């Protein structure tokens, strides 16, 4: 596969390490009353869609950026690539 890195442009997927579902970025609040259940869901429960999937890849053989990649698990078509740090900051920004 080819991953269109937001800073580098197209790079071979062999330079990247796959982690999994991008929901891993949504780490629950440890102080919440439901923290135990929240962390259980966070650590173990994943959707397994046949179709578009947002997932985390690490550009180990590149600039060491974590990327959020939207990839169709059936066709491998990649429709979006974002720097995870930007995504994480946007999530944290007050709406």
């Amino acid at each position, binding site marked *: 596969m080819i991953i269109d890195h937001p*800073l*580098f*442009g197209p790079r*071979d997927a*062999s*330079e990247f390490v796959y982690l999994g579902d991008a929901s891993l970025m949504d780490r629950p609040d440890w102080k919440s009353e439901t923290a135990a259940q929240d962390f259980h869901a966070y650590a173990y429960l994943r959707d397994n869609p046949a179709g578009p999937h947002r997932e985390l890849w690490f550009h*180990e*053989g*590149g*600039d*060491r*950026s974590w990327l959020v990649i939207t990839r169709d698990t059936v066709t491998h078509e990649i429709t979006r690539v974002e*720097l995870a*740090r930007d995504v994480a900051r946007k999530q944290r920004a007050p709406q």
Partner: protein
Amino acid sequence: MHDLTPITALGGSAARSDTIAGLTLTERPDVALASVAARLGQETATRAAVGTLIGTEAPGPGHLAGGEVRAFWIGPDQWMIEAPFATHENIATILRAVTGPAASVTEQTDAWTRFDLSGEDLVPVLELLSNLDHRRMASGHATRTTIHHLGCYLVRSAANTASIYGPRASAGSLHHAILGAMGAGL
């Protein structure tokens, strides 16, 4: 002045040089390296400091800039600065004096070993080593790439020269891989 004698990454007392089929590969222990990473909110100041260090604008992703002191981009708001070892052995301290608290500076001199590959046409050699579009990597390009499972930086400072920075501990494996590609005669 201390009295410890350094060795090169390949284990020699002097830099090694090999010539095969009109191509030359030279070990370059005579450079000092340090990474400069912007502190949070200090990206502009750091970029400016890098510019001051190299005497020109800090390079963007995939690029190299500067002269005797040069910088290449290694990550978002992060650069590798290279300078002559003879004058910059203590490179982290020297750079920190310029960046001040705007950036985190880390000595990288011996994390890497630099090999310079030079010759008329480097593309056939580089194509056997790394998955980049080497025909389009003009002078001034610099990027991370993988060579025989080793994470390296490839820096094109001139049309007939490529600097390959590999992990120092694997200098022997990297050297072997490059010599093999040079001898392939493609």
